């Protein structure tokens, strides 16, 4: 792989631009490159991996996402047809299938490819920043490595907090001359034959749902935060505890459809959140053998063979799925507990559960709901990219196309890579 942190490499028409370096983008890149095509990944963060790198485990196997990422990164390391631009965004795509002109904007990393990953810079950096990878639950230094598996393994500087040349301690500490505080944003052209939009998703802003208490009570967290809590390299070292006082979680409540299937927020179903909560119920149970878990849902969406996973999780007598819609979450300040009020759908009775931790199963929002490149791309009303003639030569993959799980995203990415390859073959032979 060519880690294009410095100057741009050459580009050809027999190449594919992949916008986004999450699991869909990585998969499309590896599959196309191993089939003989040149690929350029443009990733806006400092390292690849996207949302899956933030997950502790995948359903239904409860296996770590790093396992698959490692194999994919290993495949990328050995493949010179794969080029990666990090901290970069696509500004403009013009042209026709087989012959696109792309403009890429790359933000300064302030660290060049002489970086060996030795960590000496971090040891001297005086500035802290909220760790966005951990949803602000801890901090990193202004010069940071996104996470333990960060790939490429090169540090980056967050220039929204770094004092740059006013400080410069890291420059002196780096033995290899890898830090360059004079780096600037650069814009450069690329010619490609086809484009894959693998721009993924971002979590829905749970603070928008007033009655569920997110942002007001620290023990109301979202499902994505839960993943970081459970991750061994997360802010608590994998300890699943209450955010307010670090105490164990004896009762946890999962609130399904926290925004989804509600035309006030997200009209669609996110498809993965029921399975996500079933999985996270196992995190709670693993952390505390006496813990009780309640999952309030409208429909438990576990299509196909995932029904097997659902059964396996719900076989645990301490995990209960309740067909009911949560009305509100309030705090009982005296008891230091949260109270979840819900309506039981079948009996139409009100139920109320005391909880140490409330997890909101929020949905996936299309990344393309803002910051779209200037290009001929068709979107639906929810900002998902349409896989049809409204985007000629441009193919969506994974959550850019719709909210899907990892397994579907990898299948989708493989199919998108095939579409891109045949577009190029048809146009250029």
């Amino acid at each position, binding site marked *: 792989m060519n880690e294009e942190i410095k100057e741009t490499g050459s580009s050809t028409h027999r190449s594919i631009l992949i916008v986004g370096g999450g699991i869909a983008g990585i998969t499309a890149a590896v599959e196309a490159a191993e089939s003989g095509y040149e690929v350029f990944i443009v990733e806006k963060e400092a390292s690849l991996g996207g949302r899956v790198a933030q997950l502790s485990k995948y359903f239904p196997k409860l296996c770590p996402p790093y396992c698959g990422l490692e194999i994919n990164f290993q495949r990328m390391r050995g493949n010179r047809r794969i080029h990666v631009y990090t901290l970069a965004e696509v500004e403009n795509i013009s042209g026709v299938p087989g012959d696109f002109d792309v403009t890429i904007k790359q933000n300064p990393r302030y660290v060049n490819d002489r970086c060996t990953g030795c960590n000496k810079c971090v040891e001297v950096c005086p500035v802290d920043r909220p760790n966005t990878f951990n949803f602000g639950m801890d901090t990193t230094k202004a010069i940071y490595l996104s996470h333990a598996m960060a790939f490429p393994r090169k540090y980056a500087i967050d220039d929204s907090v770094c004092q740059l040349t006013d400080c410069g301690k890291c420059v002196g500490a780096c033995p290899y001359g890898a830090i360059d505080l004079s780096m600037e944003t650069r814009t450069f052209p690329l010619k490609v034959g086809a484009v894959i939009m693998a721009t993924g998703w971002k979590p829905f802003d749970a603070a928008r749902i007033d009655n569920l208490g997110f942002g007001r009570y620290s023990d109301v967290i979202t499902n994505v935060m839960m993943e970081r809590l459970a991750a061994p390299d997360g802010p608590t070292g994998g300890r699943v505890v209450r955010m307010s006082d670090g105490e164990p979680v004896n009762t946890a409540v999962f609130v399904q459809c926290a925004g989804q299937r509600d035309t006030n927020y997200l009209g669609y179903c996110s498809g993965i959140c029921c399975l996500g909560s079933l999985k996270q119920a196992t995190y709670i149970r693993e952390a505390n053998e006496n813990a009780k878990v309640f999952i309030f849902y409208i429909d438990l969406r576990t299509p196909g063979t995932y*029904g097997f996973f659902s059964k396996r999780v719900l076989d645990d007598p301490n995990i209960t799925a309740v067909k009911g819609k949560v009305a509100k979450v309030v705090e009982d300040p005296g008891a230091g507990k949260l109270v979840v009020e819900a309506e039981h759908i079948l009996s139409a009775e009100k139920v109320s559960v005391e909880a140490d931790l409330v997890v909101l199963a929020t949905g996936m929002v299309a990344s393309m709901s803002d910051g779209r490149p200037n290009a001929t791309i068709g979107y639906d009303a929810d900002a998902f990219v349409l896989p049809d003639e409204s985007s000629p030569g441009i193919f969506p993959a994974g959550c850019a196309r719709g909210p899907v799980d990892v397994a579907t995203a990898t299948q989708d990415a493989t199919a998108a890579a095939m579409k891109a390859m045949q577009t190029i073959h048809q146009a250029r032979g």
Partner: protein
Amino acid sequence: MNKNIGVYVCSGCGIGECMDAEQLVALGSDEGGAAVVRTSPAFCLEDVQLIRDDLDSGAVDSAVVAACSHRVNADVFSFGTAFVERVNIREQVAWSHPPNDPETQEIANDYLRMGIVRAQKAVAPTPYTEAHERTVLVVGGGSAGLAAARDAARAGYDVVLVEKGASLGGYAASLYRQFPKRPPYRALAPIDVAGSIEQLQSLPNVRTLLEAEVVETSGQPGRFTVTVRRDGADELITAGAIVMATGWIPADADTFDAYGRGRYANVVSSMELEAMAARGSIVRPSNGSPVARAAVVVCDGKGDDRHRPYGGNVSSLVALKQALYIREQYPDSIVYVLYGDMQTPGPYEYFYKRVQEDEGILFSRGDIRSVTENGDHDVVLEVESTVVGGPVRLSLDLLVLSEDMVPATADAASGALSLSYLQGKELPTTKFGFADSHFICFPYETRRTGIYSAGSVRQSMDLAASAQDGSAAALKAIQCIEQASAGAAVHPRVGDLSFPDVFLQKCTSCGRCMQECPFGALETGEKGRPVLDSNRCRRCGICMGACPVQVISFADYSVDMLAGMIKAVEMPEDDEDRPRILVLACENDAYPALDMAGIGRLQYAQSARVIPVRCLGSVNSILIADAVSRGFDAVMLMGCKAGEDYQCHYIRGSELLETRMQNVKETLDRLALESERVTVAEVAISESDKIPAMIDDVVQTVKEIGLNPMKGF
């Protein structure tokens, strides 16, 4: 063969501050006999040129780079075909052990010794490049097969499409409408099977064989030989790779016994309703009269364990679609949709909302207690636990049951590739009977290299998903063809040019390698000895681990090489503070986890000596016996999770290890040694935090049972 080895010791990233690089230099030239030894404060920067120059000038032919893990800077330390051995003294020594400590220095010294042995013994592999067939064979002409054939052809590959029926299109041809395809996702979409077939037939490089079936498949990626039978005549087709898109079949009719199917005239399956809708005549089958009251039941498998432990992917959507069919034909009708959990993920939620808006469609959760028939052939349904309580009695003109989609592989006669593989005729399936990959991250990877499944034979799915699946599987087929023609492995050891070589003169024809290969790469040859189909091989080395007489090896990976590395470790004599523990770590998960322990600067016992292996399944038991007789106090086999949710990239590695451990215990018993000396440690790649304790536990065990009494023999 004596090689000219160059040893390059890096002192960057804290290595120089942790250990004496000069000791490594001396070791390289004296003990290691290196032709050239150099040091640098950072070999990954400008000084990499020194290595390149030594190789270019012929001063050395192999490079041993003692620096960072092979998991970083792979592109920097790559010099054409020259053998490069990476000795990991950064992540696994300098970053995980106390600095300037003789025991830490000893780890680095041992790792360099091991690296030199490996470089001495490794031979550059000569790839197998005899398989160049580039045709893609697609079996099955339904949605998935049509898409696979079309896309492979449009990407420039010749395609042969084999369909057992008289026409293409599969089930799509018998469906009336499909689920909404476009925003606002409210309207059912037409199905243009004829258009898809026409598009395919316009491609000059597609050959379609109808009423044809595969009667035998042999060979390997890049050179499959497939016998196709048509009109009683056999034709041999050579293909580079195969897409299996044989689709689904309805479950046995008795699946729906309790619902009166086959017993009551007005109980129909969803496929029967499709046919009626396509004709524009949905009626009561008993007397052909109109339908005023109907029920559509979502059989999603929940609470119904009699047949299978999972639900359908599409049955909810089928029920919604068919409720609309009935309402379309009979605007005054009432249609009940009975369901448990409505499965309408993603934008299909909008479709669900649209159906809910129809006042003639009534939704209720409910469990069906009984289905009977009255004298007029009305279907009488008793439902419990509905929204209005229960039980509720419904008298219906028509009851529609969603068809249960079973993969075609469930019927041996319906879609088999008839593989002429020693390990069996069928494509291995997952626990659910689907010819699917076991891996979330790596779809389409079946256990028969070069054969990729697509569509409902892989998972139950709708038409759009099947077409998508066909495209993706076509890519995998193309990719396999490209790799096979270069003699290179496909996933996960992509590009590996080595393959197992069997020293046949010493083979005892025990057959273990042929049985244990997860991919069926070895067939029986003359005198019961193994014959390798190189391009089926994924290079895991499980055959090498299996062989009781150690006659299987790779050019750059062998029992002899691993034994040499074990032997290279300097064994302290009878020093209780300096036990030695051999850690054989799987390169896929355990070794990266050890690296990450170093990156996190976690410290673990200095007695561990780590050797990466391709898979724990590649560890031959003789190596463990060897290690113990060389004086190692304990051996840890560090690998991934076994069992139903196994993570082994080679399917069976961790499973086989369990049986092999039995042999190991017997060996230890024979040597009168404690069996606790050999342990299996399961570690996930994300669990680097657990590694120090895991190794400490073994150190503790050694303390308790004492040092290996074989030491010094």
